[in-house]
């Protein structure tokens, strides 16, 4: 700690000299640094420290003393600080140091902490190939699991009631994971559960008639697909839930007519919605997939469709050389490109990308990637965006995730060892 010396006269000057020079300013040195391994999820390490004055801080950590990873830097200054180390392998020693900033930079000594063992719950993950840097979040049975780039399970949470989980997403504020528990058929008692990274105190938000998929808005609003019945017809709706109160923003009747857009009841009911994505501002829209109608609709917050691509109620026409998708699962919309996990349109599961042009009401097939022979039973999957060009294809029922670009496979394949539901990927669990 440095202190500005008083200079009240000659005596002070002489004392200053005797003390060994002039020092000005105080470094925000991290103090009381403690590291606790989560009891619930022993690959999560929670750090805390204090500073004498207001400061911001983060943690550098890694499996070697060279460190390499960092936690986020908070925007707000405080004197009591905390950070969570994520993506750690079980049973491994990790090194860390705390960095602080209040206009000056402070640093702690490098310390280490040992993570604990993590039950794998019937999964037998393995990875072929290399080159991936992302983490993969997948539900499998009643578990939600995060796989590291090397295939190791770095986080796992089991639903306390052993219920099947169909969709998992990272919380946008980086605080944990959410997953949905839907009834089959949709009914009351379904819910979306938030689990903080340390696994302690999960919070459930009941949403009746959940279909399965949901997404998050930036303000924490939950948006979910729910089943809605009108005049005996079982359609679907998007509900937004704020403070536990749901409000419907769209239903499949808004853009489709059960009389003309009949569907084929692959999923019991009429429209068979099975996938939902929210596009943050400036789009501020939803994209919803309706498996029974083999259509995908872009829906605005006013409850109408900007466009529909597919085989029912379409406002966009496939170009002549395009092979339309059918009974699709997940998708990814990125600008004017939509990448679709197509279960049946090409006779074998595939990932297909279309360039859409709403102004001209056309969709042109850009590329496709057929499920490779080694991926057995691929269905009900999704393309998960790793970057603008890289996609991690979740081959759903096959329990495998493959890294591809439009040029083809990148040679990295994660086998979870069990069927998986819808999930997400992240390059950095600390920067979600």
């Amino acid at each position, binding site marked *: 700690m*440095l202190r*500005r010396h008083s200079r009240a006269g000659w005596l002070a*000057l*002489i004392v*200053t*000299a005797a003390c*060994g*020079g*002039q*020092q*000005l*300013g*105080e*470094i925000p040195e991290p103090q009381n640094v403690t590291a606790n391994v989560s009891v619930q999820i022993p690959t999560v390490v929670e750090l805390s420290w204090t500073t004498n004055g207001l400061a911001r801080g*983060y943690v*550098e950590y890694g499996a070697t003393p060279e460190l390499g990873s*960092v*936690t*986020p*830097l908070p925007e707000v200054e405080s004197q009591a600080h905390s950070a969570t180390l994520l993506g750690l392998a079980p049973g491994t020693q990790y090194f860390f140091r705390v*960095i602080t*900033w*209040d*206009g*000056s*930079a402070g*640093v702690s000594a490098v310390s280490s902490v040992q993570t604990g063992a993590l039950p794998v719950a019937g999964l037998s993950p393995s990875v072929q190939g290399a080159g991936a840097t992302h983490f993969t979040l997948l539900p499998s049975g009643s578990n939600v699991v995060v796989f590291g780039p090397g295939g190791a399970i770095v986080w796992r949470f089991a639903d306390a009631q052993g219920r099947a989980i169909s969709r998992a997403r990272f919380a946008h504020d980086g605080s944990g994971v959410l997953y949905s528990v839907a009834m089959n058929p949709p009914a009351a008692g379904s819910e979306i559960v938030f689990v903080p990274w340390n696994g302690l105190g999960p919070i459930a938000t009941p949403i009746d008639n959940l279909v399965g998929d949901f997404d998050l808005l930036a303000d924490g609003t939950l948006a979910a697909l729910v089943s809605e019945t009108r005049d005996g017809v079982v359609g679907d709706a998007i509900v937004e839930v704020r403070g536990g109160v749901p409000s419907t923003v769209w239903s499949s009747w808004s853009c489709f007519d059960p009389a003309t857009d009949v569907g084929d009841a692959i999923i019991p009911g009429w429209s068979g919605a099975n996938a939902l994505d929210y596009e943050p501002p400036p789009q501020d829209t939803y994209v919803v997939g309706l498996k029974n109608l083999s259509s995908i609709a872009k829906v605005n917050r006013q409850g109408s469709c900007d466009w529909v691509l597919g085989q029912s109620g379409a406002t966009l026409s496939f170009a002549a050389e395009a092979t339309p998708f059918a009974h699709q699962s997940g998708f990814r919309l990125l600008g004017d490109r939509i990448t679709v996990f197509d279960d049946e349109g090409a006779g074998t599961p595939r990932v297909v990308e279309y360039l859409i042009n709403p102004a001209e009401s056309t969709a042109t097939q850009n590329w496709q990637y057929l499920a490779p022979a080694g991926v057995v039973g691929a269905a009900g999957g999704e393309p998960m965006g790793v970057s603008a060009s890289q996609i991690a294809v979740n081959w759903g029922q096959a329990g495998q995730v493959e890294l591809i670009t439009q040029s083809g496979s990148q040679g990295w394949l994660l086998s979870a060892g069990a069927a998986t539901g819808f999930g997400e990927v992240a390059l*950095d669990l*600390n*920067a979600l």
Partner: protein
Amino acid sequence: MVIAAMNEKQNRARSPRTAAIAAALCTLTASLTAHAGGFYAGVKGARAAGRGGAFTARADDLSAVALNPAGIVKLRSTTLHAGNRFSHNTHTFTRAPTLDWGNSVNGVPPYVEFDGVENATPFQPLDPILGVSTTLGLSDWAFAVVAYAPPGVARQEFPADGGQRYMMISRNAIMVHYDLTAAWRASDSFGIGLSLQTVAVPELEYSLALDGNAGSGVATNPVSSPFDMQATISGSDYFTPQAILGAWYKPAPFLEFGLSGQVIPTQIEAQSKLEIEPLGESLRQRAEALGTEIGWFRNDLPSDNDVTLTLPLPITARAGVRYIGLSGARESFDVEFDVQYESWSRVESFTLNSNGLSADLWGTRVPVDVIEVQKQWQDTISLHLGSDVVLAQDLLTLRGGAYWEAPVADPAYANVDFTSGEQLGGALGASIELGDMEIALVYDYRHQLPVEVTEAAGKVTQEVPGSLCPAPYDDPNLCAEPYLGQRSPTVNAGIYRAHTHAGSIDVLYRF
């Protein structure tokens, strides 16, 4: 006693060769490339330095022209004084670690530590004094012509990629004082003197790194910028007049007072050229790709790269009291205590005024405008205590002294260009008399107490001529968020250490 013996020599020798010798000495001195100055450190003259600078009252050699011109009148014989100071000046700096906001990954700036750097040109071989004094046959007058380099660290060089580079990369100051002194004594107990000097600075160079990023206009690269460039200002100023007034008073044989001061506020205004070389990778690539010279403009018209560098000089005052130990009529020892004041608060900044110059850096126009290296120096006081002890009359005198100097800069404005912290020093010396010749030797050790400043407290900030962030630097749209409230990143945080080993040898010949 040394003084009595000296006076005896002075009285007997008034050579008609004086004028010719003086002229020759002046010519010789003027031809020397006197590497010295900086802003002064140390004491001119081996006899004065050997007393830790406590020489204002004694002032009985030609270093008196700088310390107390009235002392010249004590030299009653023609005196030739030639000497040189050799010094080894260690100056190290370790920049404080910082966060590299310009290279944040996912909003997290890396923690960056810096290697220590040190002055690569520590040895200074030339720091001379050369002069002659004469009474011109007048009983109560004495005159002197002296040229000397003010004591100091003339040259410093640090790595162009070192942690200090945004403060300074190198500097070189060649300064020579040309002096004409006249002194008069009213009696054996009182004398006054006046030195008229001109400070010649034939070479003044200062180099530092700038962030030439004119693209985003946001100064947020505390560690390095792809648009880093080295700006070098080099110029000269051959005439800066100043005057030193002095007096001594000896109310009793054992007691003497001295008082002197540089009384004209002056400043060096060096007409200079500004040169720029690329340091950052982006500028290097542009320079290599385009292969053209930098274009200079004023009011969008091609212009010379002429600029003005202004360095104020201080007003000084010295006061000393000397106790003389007598053995019969001869002096056997003395002890002197001096206080020195220097008005360094005149130096608020080193100002480079380009008069609206802008540089075309291979496609990017960067306004140079006014570059101000913030100094905010403060007036200083120094204390000097010294003594001469005659071990063998007319043969050997030992001397010693010590001093303390207040810091010239608040640590917030610490910089590698000058040692600006508190300084302590001590000296040991001797004079050997061989007939009419006296050889004075001294070893002087000067130590700056460490100066440490944090980034939040530092006030010397990176020069970013293209920054769009306006004062008071709190516009979040135009200023970098981590540096709101300051014009750019602080670059002088760290630990400064300095010390100097110096030796002087002077030869005085009285005839």
